[in-house]
């Protein structure tokens, strides 16, 4: 017999959990739409407070807007980002959550700029975040 749990509280009223239901968790539906959505967020960015909230609570990720990287922190863990922007080469201190290789690829994809990214060291903060300190320089 299937083990079915019916939630009778809060927003889960009328929601039945049945783990025998077919699992689609790893199925990527509508990949073109997904790619378009990722591009919309990458290209146009989202409001800084959204980026801040999602970044603080969520997984390591990054947000771009207007040619610069969002989620600047720079209090303790900083790195130098040199990236070609719409108005030239921007060099600013930021804290970001990504990998050096991915950042290189993103900068190249967005601005056609060949850069080298170096991870200086990583810092674990509050038991869950890996703050990667990066240095980015033009090749």
């Amino acid at each position, binding site marked *: 017999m299937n083990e079915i749990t019916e939630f009778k509280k809060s927003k889960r009223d009328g929601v039945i959990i049945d783990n025998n239901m077919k699992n*689609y968790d790893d199925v990527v539906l*509508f990949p073109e739409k997904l790619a378009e959505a990722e591009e919309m967020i990458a290209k146009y960015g989202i409001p800084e407070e959204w980026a801040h909230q999602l970044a603080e609570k969520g997984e390591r990720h990054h947000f771009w807007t207007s040619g610069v990287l969002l989620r600047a922190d720079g209090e303790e863990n900083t790195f130098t980002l040199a990236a070609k922007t719409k108005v030239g080469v921007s060099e600013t201190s930021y804290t970001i959550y990504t990998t050096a290789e991915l950042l290189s690829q993103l900068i190249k994809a967005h601005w056609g700029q060949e850069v080298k990214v170096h991870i200086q060291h990583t810092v674990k903060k509050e038991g869950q975040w890996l703050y990667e300190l990066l240095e980015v320089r033009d090749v």
Partner: protein
Amino acid sequence: MRYETYLLETRESMMTFEFISKGPKGSVKKRVQYTKFKQGNFYNLAFGDVNKNNDIDDKTVTHNNDTHKVLATVAKTVYTFLEKYPNAAIYVKGSTFARTRLYRMSISNNLEEINEQFEVLGFLEDKDWVVYEKNNDYSAFLIKLKD
């Protein structure tokens, strides 16, 4: 929620929800599936009828005279999903212009209630993601829980 909804079935992961729409066209199985973006804590919401191949058909119009109940049920998956994944943001864009317009009307008609628990962004084509306001022609939406 002030609308009647269908009974939802899901797995513990709450990435997929199914329900049965009932009306003049009979019982029609519907599925809502969330797919995580490659980057960031974003999830795409896909929704449609389940076709004979057991795939989501997001373009079919069922004509089961239960649009409000179906939309309210989809909205309930949003509540439930974000309760499970409170750090996530959900990306919503209709498969057609008409469906996106339907979503937009639905959000606008319930914006006060939605704003009590959620923050919604709308995408103004070729401009930017902005805080959702009524009477704007958004082409996509992002939804997350309020802090």
